[in-house]
């Protein structure tokens, strides 16, 4: 049975723990009954009910299942880097009950046929929901419009161009106008290709010292402004993916104040690390957009806290070891991250840079709303949730991480937050074995 279908039969009860709903509701000593894939009862009703299995969540946080708007599953195509089964299993370990699958596959997800393939594989091999994002241009080449009607009909929740840019503003405008025709949200990672050129690191202190090729801040900010203006004109729902600059957050806030239908996300690593992570030519931190300055990091966190940035994403990009075993410029951008997003977020909470409810909101209701969905643990809702212990520590290493990606920047580092249980549509997608 597909995880997207409601699970019938077995029931599950979760008792104890602190519930943090993505919408701001909080309660202690919780009881939830899950039956037929939905939250069947809460509170005393749930406590009194009998269930096939009961999970005790003492000391844990119960939250809606995390929703990742940017996850690379590598299938179809790049099997050496990962596949739908391995990466969704990794996502479930990380507390995600839903991932949006990037269109950067091989072949590119630019037709209904590829979307169906992804959904078919996910239905049998993924323990969590997989929502495909279609390519907005054919082959992600940035030149010709893709078959967006077909993509929408096949089940794509949005269209975008992955990490690839669109060649020019005229094509971008047409992409938006055409997507708007079918009510599709467009997801764009804002980058002016001409300004970014061959760069691979933030154009600043570290690039100057190490002689790396820089991507200037204006490569992002000019694209953000261009996209906002075009979205305003075409009326399309715009989602800006993976912001990295303080100035982008300012422009986003201003556009939203003006009433533009624009949402945005940021990758968790942008909230923790800065350009200085590259000071030792560490290819694990070669990401795109690049890690920027401390003031950008702080502004991005402030954007999440204020709700200007709706979502935190993993921007998970599993790679085989060969992709990262080379001089920095020759390595592929991206890091394996989906299993450590929560823990890195909890580090921010420990450092008082963010509150736990703000973190939960940015991992649940924020991203869900950006794709027109809900993430809630109220009675009657689909049972997508996760239970994690924020006070338990773990040390990721390449033997214990589930993703096929072998270049997580957090290996060997003690992190807070262990996911005990992930449930998707009422089914247990991941449960920590009893010790």
């Amino acid at each position, binding site marked *: 049975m597909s995880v997207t279908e409601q699970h019938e039969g077995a029931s599950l009860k979760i008792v104890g723990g602190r519930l943090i709903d993505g919408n701001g509701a909080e309660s202690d000593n919780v009881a939830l009954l899950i039956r037929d894939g939905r939250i069947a009862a809460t509170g005393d009703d749930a406590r009194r009910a009998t269930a096939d299995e009961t999970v005790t969540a003492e000391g844990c946080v119960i939250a809606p299942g995390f929703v990742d708007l940017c996850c690379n599953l590598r299938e179809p195509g790049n099997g050496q880097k990962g596949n739908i089964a391995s990466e969704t299993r990794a996502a479930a370990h990380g507390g995600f009950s839903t991932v949006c699958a990037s269109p950067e596959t091989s072949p590119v997800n630019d037709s209904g046929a590829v979307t169906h393939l992804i959904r078919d594989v996910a239905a049998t091999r993924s323990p969590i929901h997989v929502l495909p994002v279609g390519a907005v241009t054919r082959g992600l080449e940035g030149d010709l419009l893709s078959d967006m009607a077909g993509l929408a009909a096949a089940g794509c929740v949005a269209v975008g161009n992955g990490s690839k840019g669109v060649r020019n503003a005229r094509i971008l405008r047409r992409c938006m106008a055409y997507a708007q025709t079918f009510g599709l949200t467009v997801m764009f990672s804002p980058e002016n290709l001409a300004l970014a050129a061959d760069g691979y690191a933030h154009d600043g202190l570290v*690039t*100057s010292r190490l*002689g790396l090729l820089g991507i200037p801040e204006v490569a992002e900010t000019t694209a953000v402004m261009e996209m906002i203006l075009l979205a305003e004109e075409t009326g399309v729902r715009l989602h800006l993916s993976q912001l990295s600059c303080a100035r982008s957050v300012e422009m986003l806030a201003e556009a939203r104040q003006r009433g533009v239908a624009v949402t945005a996300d940021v990758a968790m690593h942008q909230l923790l690390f800065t350009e200085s*992570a590259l000071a030792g030519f560490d290819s694990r931190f070669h990401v795109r957009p690049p890690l920027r300055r401390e003031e950008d990091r702080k502004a991005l966190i402030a954007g999440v806290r204020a709700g200007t940035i709706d979502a935190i994403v993993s921007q998970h990009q599993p790679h085989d070891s060969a992709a990262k075993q080379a*001089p920095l410029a020759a390595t592929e951008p991206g890091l394996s991250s989906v299993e450590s997003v929560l823990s890195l977020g909890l580090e921010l909470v420990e450092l008082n840079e963010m509150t736990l409810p703000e973190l939960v909101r940015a991992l649940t209701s924020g991203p869900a709303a950006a794709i027109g969905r809900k993430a809630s643990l109220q009675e009657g809702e689909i049972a997508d949730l996760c239970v994690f212990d924020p006070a338990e520590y773990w040390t990721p290493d390449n033997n214990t991480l589930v993703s096929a990606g072998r270049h997580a920047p957090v290996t060997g580092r003690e992190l807070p937050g262990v996911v005990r249980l992930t449930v998707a549509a009422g089914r247990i997608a991941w449960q920590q074995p009893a010790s």
Partner: protein
Amino acid sequence: MTANDPSPHHLQLTRDGQLRHFLTLDGLDRELLTDILDTADSFIEVGERTIKKVPLLRGRTVVNLFFESSTRTRSTFELAAKRLSADVLNLDISTSATSKGESLSDTLLNLEAMASDMFVVRHSQSGAPHFIAESVTPGVAIINAGDGRHAHPTQAMLDMLTIRQHKGTFEGLKVAIVGDVLHSRVARSQIRALNELGAAEVRIIAPGTLLPKDVESLGCTIEYDMAKGMKDLDVVIMLRLQKERMEGALLPSEREFYRLYGLSQEKLALAHPDCIVMHPGPINRGVEIESAVADGPHSVILNQVTNGIAIRMAVMSMAMGGQVAERQRKQSERARS
């Protein structure tokens, strides 16, 4: 919270501060830089002997791994290694294995299997020698012979040796580096060395298109006007301007660059009367420098070439010494446990 600052220099020193690799001048203190200069000084007379050899690297295998061609740098490294009595293997990698699709890691494994003791690496990508130093078996020393836009530490040190020979000290010196700093690995290393050794001022004289972002953070001031920048200079270091850089909207023309930033006798006259003129070579006469200046009494360009061999001998012998000391330390630790 941000990541720690994992600077590359930690990789190149042994636990007790000896040189193990020579990748960058970042993180090397004045004492160590002075040691390198002193050691190089002591090697200068080797080149004046009839038998130009000392046995410091006898029985050792040095591999010149040039992923980017450079006849001059490779020749001086080869000569330096041979004067230290090493066996030398020259590999022009750009035309061999990696061009057939072999990864750099696999190329290294093969070369290590030949029991090499030292790789001298020239690469077009910044950080490549650092990557190699992290990848190779302990005991193999890596010497950076220029990587991308990052560093060219032996070139910078031979420049420092030349300055010290002519000026005696770095204290109080005003030095200008002129031209294409954006693409220059040499300039980055020179700025670092001059600051560490105590120069009073390092000035960059260049147009905005040839400056890295926030270049002042490297420890220098910027001057766009060469006439102003030449004032009170003790040393002027001209950088090579590659002709392809004229395209891509970095500069309008060779002629305009020469008019504004080329070193003529007239501009040199604005500097201190004892100002020395340096250039890492090969020089483009009439683009960066006037022939009368390049061949004139202020020019120390040929001294730089001679000093290049001594500096490379110093660095190679010191790095090999560090590797041996490290190995002995590990052996004695193992024996104790």
